[in-house]
């Protein structure tokens, strides 16, 4: 201990909190193998290493298989069955042993060479199924090689660790979320990648986009993840640890103070009341509605339910989940978004597209799959008998999609009426405004629905033509781009013109420095990740609506994001000095 130098890596803060803990490296990269000759006297030792590694790999895979069967389902688990069978391929390992003896090469080198032959043959196949099998073969190969090299690969995740990996897919995040993960730190990903969203909704601190962290960290290393600043410290000195604990305490104290305003209304000093609501993904999170002092759920993402099960969940499964969310949120409303799969939220059986963000996702998928859409609408309607539900349609790009969706809603209602199943006859339906065409048509769309909700994450990336998950261009993803602000203003004005409320459920609605601006633009409801809600309420309660309007008017005259952010930050700091702005 102590012989390694402290290293600080800078990434993108994706979920707040400071954690000091041991790293668990979730490595997917291939181990390095070099051609190495051995002496005749080393043959038996080399064969022993091989056997030991194969046995160990089998044990690990059996564990993975078991875990996957429990958590994901037996279909996915089949991949690991095939891998286990390869480990017991006596012909393959017979020839590997023979090669070690005859060629006098190290076990890992021979394993690499022999298995790669098959892998290459599979990779060359024109059959997609075969090319996928090539990846399985590669996984087995890497596992055996790692075990020969006796690099410690912990097959079972150790609870209370910080997960360090190249990238976390939504499935990985879900899997890890069931164990006790202290924090995440990843090489890739942007602030609005699905993994980042998920870690925020689960209140797990995370830093993404660190680029090289997996190359520097080994299993068991002590690291500090700072989800406020985006810094990750490797091999921290005693001094650094002490400083971090101090900062952590500061933040915790501030959060305690915020709890005191939990029961109070989000009302400005001059009396305007706004709604602050929660974005949630799992029914377990609905408890936040009350503990964080919100006025309901402004965005319930139903994809979590779909990602957890292999096939589309049945109407009854969905109904049970939706009813649980509604009952936990009562007496407040729940805005439920219909399935928004596509883009970066990929399900196992989805078809691959060159440009998924511009492809088959959201309402497009639902209108093409009426049985999926109707099943979800019926489940939501049935749950609406137990509390207030507003249905929200994702990825709307024009009026026709809204009219078609409303027709399906009527069909679903009719089916339930015929079966005398109770539901809310006056259930509200609204559109997400996240496609620029819908933003331009906000007034016309508002006439067709009960409410609008601005999804800033996608709206910004479509408006600015920036892939939010691509860290090469992610700096161009600007919440405070003047075009974004003008678009938001126009959406709010158009909806208000026809008397419809506008909420915002993107990241921006929970960004402290955006609050004054959005308040000034007339936003009615702010829906955000629950942990930030008390801080946002604190801001709302510290300012007046008149001041906010003045600030918004000034911002509308500014030309660059930098100017706007600086201006908003300075104003926020003056008006709410006790905020801990990073």
């Amino acid at each position, binding site marked *: 201990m102590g012989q390694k130098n402290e290293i600080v890596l800078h990434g993108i803060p994706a979920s707040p909190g400071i954690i000091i803990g041991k790293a668990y490296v979730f490595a997917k990269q291939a181990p390095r193998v070099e051609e190495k000759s051995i002496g005749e006297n080393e043959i038996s030792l080399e064969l022993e290493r091989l056997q030991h590694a194969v046995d160990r790999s089998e044990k690990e895979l059996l564990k993975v298989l078991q875990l996957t069967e429990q958590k994901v389902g037996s279909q996915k688990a*089949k991949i690991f069955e*095939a891998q286990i069978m390869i480990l017991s391929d*006596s*012909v*393959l390992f017979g020839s590997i042993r023979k090669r070690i003896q005859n060629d006098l090469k190290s076990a890992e080198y021979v394993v690499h060479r022999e298995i790669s032959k*098959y892998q290459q*043959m*599979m990779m060359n196949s024109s059959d997609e199924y075969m090319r996928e099998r090539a990846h399985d073969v590669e996984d087995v190969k890497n596992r055996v090689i790692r075990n020969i090299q006796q690099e410690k690969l912990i097959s079972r995740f150790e609870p209370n660790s910080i997960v360090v990996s190249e990238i976390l897919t939504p499935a990985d995040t879900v899997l890890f979320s069931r164990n006790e993960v202290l924090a995440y730190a990843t090489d890739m990903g942007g602030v609005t990648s699905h993994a980042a969203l998920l870690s925020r909704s689960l209140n797990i601190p995370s830093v993404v986009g660190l680029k090289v962290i997996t190359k520097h960290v080994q299993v068991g290393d002590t690291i500090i993840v700072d989800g406020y600043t985006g810094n990750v410290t490797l091999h921290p000195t005693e001094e650094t640890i002490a400083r971090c604990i101090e900062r952590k305490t500061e933040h915790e104290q501030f959060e305690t103070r915020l709890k005191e305003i939990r029961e109070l209304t989000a009302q400005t000093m001059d009396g305007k009341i706004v709604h602050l609501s929660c974005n949630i993904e799992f029914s377990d999170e609905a408890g936040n509605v009350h503990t964080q002092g919100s006025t309901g759920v402004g965005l319930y993402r139903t994809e979590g339910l779909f990602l957890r099960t292999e096939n589309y969940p049945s109407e009854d499964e969905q109904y049970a989940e939706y009813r649980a969310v509604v009952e936990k949120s009562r007496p407040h409303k729940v805005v439920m978004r219909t399935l928004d799969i596509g883009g970066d939220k990929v399900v196992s059986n989805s078809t691959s597209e060159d440009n998924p963000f511009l492809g088959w996702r959201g309402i497009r998928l639902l209108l093409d799959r009426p049985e999926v859409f109707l099943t979800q609408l019926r489940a939501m309607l049935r749950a609406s008998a137990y509390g207030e539900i507003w249905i929200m349609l994702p990825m709307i790009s024009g009026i026709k999609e809204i009219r078609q969706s409303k027709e399906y809603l009527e069909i679903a209602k009719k089916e339930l009426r015929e079966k005398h199943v109770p539901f809310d006859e006056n259930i509200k339906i609204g559109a997400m405004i996240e496609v620029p065409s819908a933003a331009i048509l906000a007034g016309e769309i508002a006439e067709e629905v009960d409410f609008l909700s601005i999804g800033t994450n996608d709206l910004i990336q479509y408006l600015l033509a920036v892939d939010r998950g691509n860290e090469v261009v992610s700096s161009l993803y600007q919440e405070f781009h003047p075009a974004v602000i003008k678009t938001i203003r126009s959406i709010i004005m158009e909806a208000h013109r026809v008397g419809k409320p506008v909420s915002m459920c993107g990241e921006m609605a929970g960004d402290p420095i955006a609050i004054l601006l959005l308040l000034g633009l007339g936003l009615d409801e702010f829906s955000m990740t629950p942990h930030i809600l008390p801080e946002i309420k604190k801001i709302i309660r510290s300012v007046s609506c008149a001041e906010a309007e003045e600030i918004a008017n000034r911002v509308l005259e500014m030309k660059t994001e930098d100017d706007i952010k600086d201006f908003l930050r300075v104003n926020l700091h003056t008006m709410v000095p006790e905020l801990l702005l990073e």
Partner: protein
Amino acid sequence: MIEKDVTIKNRAGLHTRPAAALVKLAAQFQSEFFIYKDGFEINGKSIIGVMTLAAEQGSTLQLKFDGSDEQQAAQAVVGLFERGFDEV
């Protein structure tokens, strides 16, 4: 030595499960067992080899058995192919 030609009858072809069944059956016999397809020779007792064949429905394979129990081995293995790996 015995040589036989067989055709893949089950829809999914020689994917993982049938490949495993084939290898398991072949392992019960002393005889060597090789499969030929499109100029490739694969040891029929090796799962990774059989997986690599990528034999889809309708493709024809040549089987070769050589050893003391080649009769029994050929009969059992050809039977498995003819039954479409019990999943037709």
